[in-house]
């Protein structure tokens, strides 16, 4: 009997290894295949058994459940209380359309035969038969935009590097997924790392680069192990090296580990760090596409962006461009977490509303209390109130509602949240992680915390609220990068949507 148990670090963090051990201990005839996670985290650790071409899921499972679960696994009994039925059908019923994470949770990560049997290398094989310009054109036609947060059209970026004359050129994968509430990059790297390597290789063919770097955050030791395993597998099977799949064209990839600095997720800071320097941001222009790593033309793309490329090449640009709304094409890997009943990864075409995600998919707050504020797009994203739950999850539409989609992270807070404390934290975080290069970010973030303290201490309140707004304006307009330039958004959104939370605190004391 073949049974799948995730080796994804989040599933492991709540007992997936113990479940896998219990399975083999109770029945040595069971073969346990370790996969990534499907992203149905409220059901983790989830066990899947293959039956009639379907994967039947059971979850959440503890090691103690295994003796009682074995009969159900053997017979495919769907009446067991932990059974969730056909997992693919469950994903479909949620409106999921898996382009990027199609193999995550399905294959054994880094296993070459499993990868190829499930569509791996199809995109790369097509790319090898195409002119570099045609690859760039396919990415343009797909409408793919940078999934790391900025949403810049990927094809345009590739065109700039393709057209640049300086050599050598580089492909850099930004795997410094530092935003709170985001874990899609980690899931792909742990669950289907070969897809990322394939996407980077296609990028290399498109722009004429022979070397790729993955800048991975140090907080992801499990993703590091998976990537190294996948690199070895890709080299052994000829996907990387002097002759990519026998084409005579060279491409190789190296993983570099960061050292705990959030700012290194900003692309110019990342490049500095990759060069072995302090992660101080650079002025733009020149753009990294013109002068990036070691001042050479460099594609810097996020994990999910690069991981989506193989599917676009394999199935045609239309598979991607036909999904989504307006200028937001394809799927968004929505990462739903915080205080929510069904946290997880939902890969869904752009355009579903925030309220649908939180209430219908997420099942509301885990605490059973009503949701009050939702932070979308990481620690620099605005807090959205319940009144804005009708906003569609798409770049421009979300921006018009005063928010930012960013990397697709959605963090839910219930009605016990203190929004003045959240606003203060946004600035505290900004000050801790500031690279220190520009004054609005370095100093403004510290002064902002002091001003919020004065507001909640009822010290010249009205004047200090005006001062806080002015300070936020200065940071937005005057900061060199998005770190200081966007940290005011959670602050201002808290102030605008939840003014009651900024009332004086002192009166409550006896």
């Amino acid at each position: 009997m073949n049974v799948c148990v995730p080796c994804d670090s989040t599933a492991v963090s709540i007992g997936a290894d113990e479940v896998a051990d219990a399975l083999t201990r109770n029945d040595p005839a069971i073969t346990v295949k370790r996969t990534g996670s499907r992203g149905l985290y409220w059901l983790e650790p989830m066990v899947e058994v293959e039956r009639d071409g379907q994967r039947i899921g059971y979850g959440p499972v503890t090691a103690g459940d295994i003796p009682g679960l074995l009969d159900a696994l053997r017979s495919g009994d769907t009446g067991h209380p932990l059974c969730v039925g056909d997992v693919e059908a469950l994903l479909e019923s949620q409106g999921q359309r898996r382009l990027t994470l199609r193999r995550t949770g399905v294959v054994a990560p880094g296993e070459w035969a499993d990868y190829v049997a499930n569509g791996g290398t199809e995109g790369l094989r097509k790319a090898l038969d195409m002119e570099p310009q045609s690859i760039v054109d396919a990415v343009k036609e797909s409408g793919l935009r940078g999934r790391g947060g900025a949403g810049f059209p990927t094809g345009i970026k590739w065109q700039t590097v393709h057209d640049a004359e300086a050599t050598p050129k580089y492909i850099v994968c930004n795997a410094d997924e530092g935003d709170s509430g985001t874990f899609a990059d980690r899931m792909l790297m742990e669950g289907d790392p070969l897809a990322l390597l394939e996407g980077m290789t296609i990028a290399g063919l498109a722009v004429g680069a022979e070397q790729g770097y993955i800048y991975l955050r140090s907080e992801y030791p499990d993703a590091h192990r998976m990537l190294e395993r996948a690199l070895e597998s890709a080299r052994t099977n000829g996907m990387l090296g002097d002759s990519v799949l026998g084409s005579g064209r060279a491409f190789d990839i190296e993983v570099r580990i960061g050292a705990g600095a959030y700012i290194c997720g900003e692309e110019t800071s990342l490049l500095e760090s990759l060069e072995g320097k302090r992660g101080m941001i650079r002025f733009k222009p020149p753009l990294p596409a013109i002068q990036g790593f070691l001042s050479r033309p460099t594609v810097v793309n996020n994990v999910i962006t690069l991981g989506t490329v193989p599917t676009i090449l394999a199935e045609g640009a239309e598979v991607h461009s036909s999904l989504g709304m307006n200028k937001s094409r394809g799927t968004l890997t929505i990462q739903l977490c915080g205080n929510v009943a069904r946290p997880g990864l939902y890969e869904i075409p752009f355009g579903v509303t925030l309220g649908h995600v939180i209430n219908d998919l997420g099942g509301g707050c885990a605490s059973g209390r009503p949701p009050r504020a939702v932070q979308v797009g990481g620690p620099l994203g605005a807090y959205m109130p319940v009144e804005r739950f009708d906003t569609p999850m798409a770049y421009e539409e979300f921006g018009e509602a005063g928010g930012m989609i960013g990397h697709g992270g959605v963090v839910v807070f219930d009605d016990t949240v203190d929004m003045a404390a959240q606003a203060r934290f946004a600035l505290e975080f900004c000050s801790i992680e500031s690279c220190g290069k520009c004054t609005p970010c370095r100093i403004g973030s510290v002064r902002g915390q002091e001003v919020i303290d004065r507001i909640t201490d009822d010290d010249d309140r009205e004047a200090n609220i005006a001062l806080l707004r002015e300070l936020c304006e200065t940071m937005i307009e005057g900061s060199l990068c998005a770190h200081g330039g966007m940290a005011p958004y959670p602050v201002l959104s808290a102030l605008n949507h939840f003014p009651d939370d900024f009332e004086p605190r002192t009166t409550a004391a006896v």
Partner: protein
Amino acid sequence: MSKDETGDALEIESICARHEQREGPLLAILHEVQEGHGYISNEAVGRIAHYLNLTRAEVYGVVTFYPDLREEPPRPHMLKVCRAEACQAAGGREVWATAEAMAADPDCQVEVEPVYCLGNCPCGPAVQMDERTLGRFTPEKVSALIAGASGGSSS
């Protein structure tokens, strides 16, 4: 120069030699030196600078920029506790407060550091003990974890 120091010098030199052909090798070298010694000493900064033909200030500047790189030997165990928003929404502020208070005990064998996201957001509050990520944490669990690692002395 004592025998130990000579050994250290040779080791650092061989680490530098292993990485010097890489493009932008300094961060990788610092990671490996710290892995072996637990921290990056003043002497190590000097030796690395000498080998790479950089100033001491350039190397020291990198050491001080990154939260992961340390100039002092750490306690035997490293506990990173997530302080970021997704974990806050699930009760992370209390987990952090408990861990921080326990780490104030000089006998505590656990280095407690804040971290701003471990990517374990769907099962927060999250902590990472010696590279092992743990989810759905509570003040009670973190207290038991730190006490256990400290031999029960700081329960």
